[in-house]
């Protein structure tokens, strides 16, 4: 899947051949500012339009069989409430695999995107047997939904 960094790298494009008029300079300034905002906002999220509502549907059909969106609620896996930004293996009382506990990951959007693509490859030995979401758009949407769980 195309990563965010690659996607946003393209429009920056280096020199565009324009003469640096004030207007152009202003536009360049605005562009840089906007770009900075995009980089800050999407330093990790996948490069797809994110639809949290659609992500909720993905969550319900693919994730909720094992994970709750409610705080502190364990079903098969740990609650995903507040998962974005959380360190791996850190929900108190949950029986993690050694692999997950020792992975040293932080579940930022970028890491979540990689993990959700193929959990077993990112954390070999994880107890999460889910084979992964192979549709980048679904991943982007579900991560958008997870980001709202705070």
């Amino acid at each position, binding site marked *: 899947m195309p990563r965010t960094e690659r996607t946003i790298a393209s429009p920056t494009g280096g020199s565009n051949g324009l003469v640096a008029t004030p207007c152009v300079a202003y536009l360049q300034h605005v562009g840089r500012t906007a770009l900075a905002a995009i980089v800050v906002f999407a330093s990790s999220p996948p490069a797809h339009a994110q639809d949290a509502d659609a992500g909720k549907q993905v969550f*319900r059909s693919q994730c909720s069989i094992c994970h709750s*969106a*409610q705080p502190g609620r*364990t*079903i098969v896996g740990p609650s995903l409430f507040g998962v974005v930004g959380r360190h791996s293996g850190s929900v108190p009382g949950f029986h993690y695999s050694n692999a997950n506990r020792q992975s040293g990951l932080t579940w930022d959007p970028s890491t979540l995107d990689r993990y959700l693509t193929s959990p077993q490859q990112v954390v070999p030995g994880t107890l999460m*047997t889910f084979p992964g979401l192979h549709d980048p758009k679904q991943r982007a949407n579900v991560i958008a939904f997870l980001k709202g769980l705070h």
Partner: protein
Amino acid sequence: MRRLAYTPGIIVFVVVLLLGDKAHAVPPFAMQTGQPCTACHIGAFGPQLTPLGRAFKIGGYTQTGGQGWQSHFPLAAMFLGSFTNTGQSQPDPAAVHFGRNNNFAADQISLFLAGRVTDYAGGFVQGTYSGIDGSFKLDNTDLRLTTPLDLGDTDLRLGLSVNNGPTVQDPYNSTYAWIFPFASSALTVTPTAQPLLAGGLIGNSIGTTVYGWYDRSLYLEAGLYNTYGPSLLSATGQAYGPGSTANPAPYVRVAYEWNWSGQSAHVGGLFLHSNFNPAVGPFSSDGSFGHDSFTDYAIDAGYQFLGNRTYVVTTDAILVHEDQNLRGTFGMGGAARTGHSLNQARASLSFFYKDTYGLTLGIENTWGTPDPVLYAPAPVTGSANGKPNSNAFIVEADWIPFGKQDSWAAPWVNLKLGLQYTLYTRFNGGTRNYDGFGRNAGGNNTLYAFAWLIF
């Protein structure tokens, strides 16, 4: 007198059918979900369901995740072969073409059709050829329609199941269709008296139930069952148990479950009531003397420690009380009185190491009101003192070399090798000369070695 001679045979036949045909993990589900059998089954083979397995079943077998054509391939096959030894040889051959003891058998060859149809529909159908009697029958069948309802912070899963027996559709491991022992010899003798829930309507009836699963905790289900007509019985290789239903038999199931870190528990209750025209043959019944009615009340519970799946411990139990009004059987001279009760308690404790090595202990205790006619003396299957009381201890050791995520040819090749021993301390009311013809309860102690292959 024909009725007297026939009844025990029917009951034993039904019990044999019940005990021998529990379906297990099937590769199509693994391919459909993209997950190994261990995700949904204890011991990699089942049929014990993990919390994820329960959710998959309640969700109508619709969960996806697999890729490629394999994820849409709905067929699987099963072979069960065994060796049976009983403490004492039976007076007659255990079955046609078999000896009185020490029998090797190809117990079952099954074909499964299983999988998701749409986001809202899925099913499981098992057809089984019996190598014991050479018959083919429609085995466990469960077809579902389900949909989730979003209730904000939580959800409600609603569903409808069309299935062929009470508890076939049940998601918990403490009800009869799925309780230990998961495989038993069809060439030995089992206690005559069994409550209706234990299988009197399994395989020979069709039921429609509706269910709701609220917040992944509260499970409610209700439905009605009717036995097949004679033609359908014959076509599906089944036979009447206690008889043909005189009217639809109501079934109610309530359960509540908890899941927390690597552990799961549930408690529940079941109700089943049925009025029968008593069976007088495999495909015939006679209600001219009145109906037999059975009302079963059961409570059940279970607990699983899954941890990180290195060490897994499970325990399940069910206690059934049955009220019987045998007016029809009494009218035909098959019972000394109409009012009876029957109770049964079953429990099991299993331990699995790395989903590969398993040890399970089980107990089955049955007791009820005596009746010298209903439980009359007869060689092997009868009772000398007219009591239904039996007590059995079961121990089983399992080795599952194939069936795990990293197994050879996973998930298409699944093999379980088991050694099971059943010890009877009481059988059909007695310990020594329990049948009135000199047979002891220990004579029915059974060693059952089996090889179970699903591919």
